């Protein structure tokens, strides 16, 4: 396996704001990687750093083995679709596609035209007159048809309706299967996108808190529901991600249970429910103060 992105100790401060703090990870070639986290967690800053649009305060970035900053060799192989892309006022949809054609060596104009038809995008309309969803569609089409070796999609579907999002997912998978490449997708619609992802990186408060294969992550956590005393007894010494109590009933989300542990929980009269990737990430990033920290 070759790593397309290698990041070590990466840090970016804006004044007192620690947007990205000591981040280390790799992204393997030809995988779809999800970059997940809450609003303001540092996802966009991280992608700007990886595409040479922001400068690191400390740490190392290697993209295709080189620093991306002012590096035409790296950036010509990279496509970054931003949530808030600004186009010149006079630009129409077709102008954006034509500009993309000049920028991206692997551009497929026929595919772009087919996508524009499927997304119902009025190519003759000025982009500033387009709806939010239509502007997002422009980005999605460029990101797909560019076929860049490394593509970043930063929240590619703000304002896209459910039908258009499904269309995007289908095309992303189909085109990725035909033309394998590395894709980094940032989104907060985790449940929708989870099945597309091979690898998941979750950042919270500028730090990486989960960096794992998504198949390995799924099913590692379960929610146990039952009488508070039984739940508390079972949860002792385990990694508890979240707790809810309602009268005598308690619900805890616990990480790292083996099948034998799950059977033991069921035998103790607890209801064992699987936790989806989205629930897992929500419970890890909820920002609740742990009881022991609150006491000290």
């Amino acid at each position, binding site marked *: 396996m070759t790593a397309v992105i290698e990041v070590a100790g990466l840090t970016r401060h804006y004044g007192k704001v620690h947007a990205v703090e000591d981040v280390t990870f790799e992204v393997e070639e030809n*995988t*779809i990687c999800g970059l997940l986290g809450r609003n303001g967690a540092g996802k966009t800053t991280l992608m700007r750093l990886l595409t040479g649009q922001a400068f690191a305060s400390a740490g190392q970035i290697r993209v295709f083995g080189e620093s991306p900053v002012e590096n035409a060799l790296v950036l010509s192989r990279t496509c970054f679709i931003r949530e808030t892309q600004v186009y010149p006022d006079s630009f129409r949809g077709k102008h954006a596609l034509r500009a993309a054609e000049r920028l991206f060596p692997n551009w497929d104009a026929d595919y772009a035209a087919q996508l524009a038809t499927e997304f119902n995008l009025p190519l003759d309309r000025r982009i500033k007159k387009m709806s939010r969803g239509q502007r997002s569609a422009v980005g999605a089409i460029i990101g797909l048809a560019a076929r860049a070796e490394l593509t970043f999609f930063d929240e590619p579907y703000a304002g896209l309706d459910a039908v258009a999002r499904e269309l995007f*997912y*289908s095309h992303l*998978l*189909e085109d*990725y*299967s*035909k033309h394998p490449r590395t894709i980094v997708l940032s989104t907060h619609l985790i*449940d929708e996108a*989870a*099945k*597309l*992802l*091979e690898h998941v990186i979750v950042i919270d408060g500028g730090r990486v808190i989960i960096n794992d294969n*998504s*198949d390995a992550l*799924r*099913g590692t956590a*379960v929610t146990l529901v039952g009488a508070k005393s039984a739940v508390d007894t079972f949860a002792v010494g385990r990694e508890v991600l979240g707790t809810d109590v309602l009268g005598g009933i308690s619900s805890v989300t616990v990480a790292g249970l083996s099948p034998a542990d799950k059977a033991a929980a069921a035998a103790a009269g607890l209801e064992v*429910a*699987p*936790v*989806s*990737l*989205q629930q897992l990430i929500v419970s890890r990033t909820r920002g609740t103060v742990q009881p022991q920290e609150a006491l000290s």
Partner: protein
Amino acid sequence: MDEGRPIFVQIAEQLESQIIDGSMPPESQVPSINELAAFHRINPATALKGVNMLVEAGILYKRRGIGMFVAEGARERLIAARRDAFSDQYVRPLVAHANAIGITPTQLAAMIRKEAGS
């Protein structure tokens, strides 16, 4: 797909079910990785993991450059494995649930006979 369990396990189980119910007979070709990925809207690496589970278990085999096929005797072996797991998976929870609401084993047996006969 059920979000809480590994998707590749679910892919493997669905293929197993199709072999057991006879819709994929021995020597028939299994959908390609990309077809499975497109159909279930999942990452191809996940689909590959599911199929590889069955290849390692000898349920499917690869013909280089052509695709995946159902092995001879796969159905019988899957049925035997599912029978072994049946008691743990279904009978034990059934008895536990029945017991919790005061249904005796004799009553439960009568209920099963009635259900099967109807």
